[in-house]
């Protein structure tokens, strides 16, 4: 069965710091990869997704993620975080017709 590991449970950063959230998955075949975000009091929404092609994916709000097949990784990055990026971030993987599998999430707190 597929699984997704998010290494950091809670990350605290100052505004303007760079962000990298780790995500590793277990499945060895063709995968589709997603990052979802949940802002306080709001529902899950898609940040970005990877299906094929360029392994560097650009998403909304300045986020990007890089798919590294050899490392089974899909880390999320942002060069300079803002207070409004405070949220919980979920990595998810899907392969073919299998259900979407989520990681446990990483809580990001951005302080002024």
């Amino acid at each position, binding site marked *: 069965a597929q699984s997704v590991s998010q290494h950091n449970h809670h990350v605290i950063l100052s505004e303007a710091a760079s962000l990298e959230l780790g995500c590793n998955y277990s499945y060895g075949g063709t995968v589709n990869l997603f990052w*979802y975000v949940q802002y306080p009091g709001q*529902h899950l929404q*898609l940040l970005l997704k990877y299906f094929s092609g360029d392994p560097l994916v650009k998403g909304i709000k300045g986020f990007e993620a890089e798919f590294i097949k050899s490392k089974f990784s899909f880390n999320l990055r942002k060069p300079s975080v803002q207070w409004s990026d405070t949220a919980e971030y979920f990595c998810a993987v899907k392969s*073919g017709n299998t*259900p979407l599998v989520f990681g*446990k999430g990483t809580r990001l707190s951005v302080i002024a």
Partner: protein
Amino acid sequence: GAGVSQTPSNKVTEKGKYVELRCDPISGHTALYWYRQSLGQGPEFLIYFQGTGAADDSGLPNDRFFAVRPEGSVSTLKIQRTERGDSAVYLCASSAQGTHTDTQYFGPGTRLTVL
């Protein structure tokens, strides 16, 4: 247009009772998903509908859980003989066609508390 809506937003019930949770997907979306999110965890898949039929119910934890989507739009998740361990946020999502490339759009969830 309107997003995915779920009712009620909160439901408190007693152990052993029956509950129904409702999901209204985005209009025109043929695929509908239910997930359960426990504290400190990511969403866990329960069931997937393509139109009116359950295409994958492999995530339902036991036979106390059942879901329907009789007209291919609104779906109801039904839990019989609730247990304290069923307490969680139940999320619904919909996507246009249910293909592996589709984006799933999530609703706000129903927080179920079983006392």
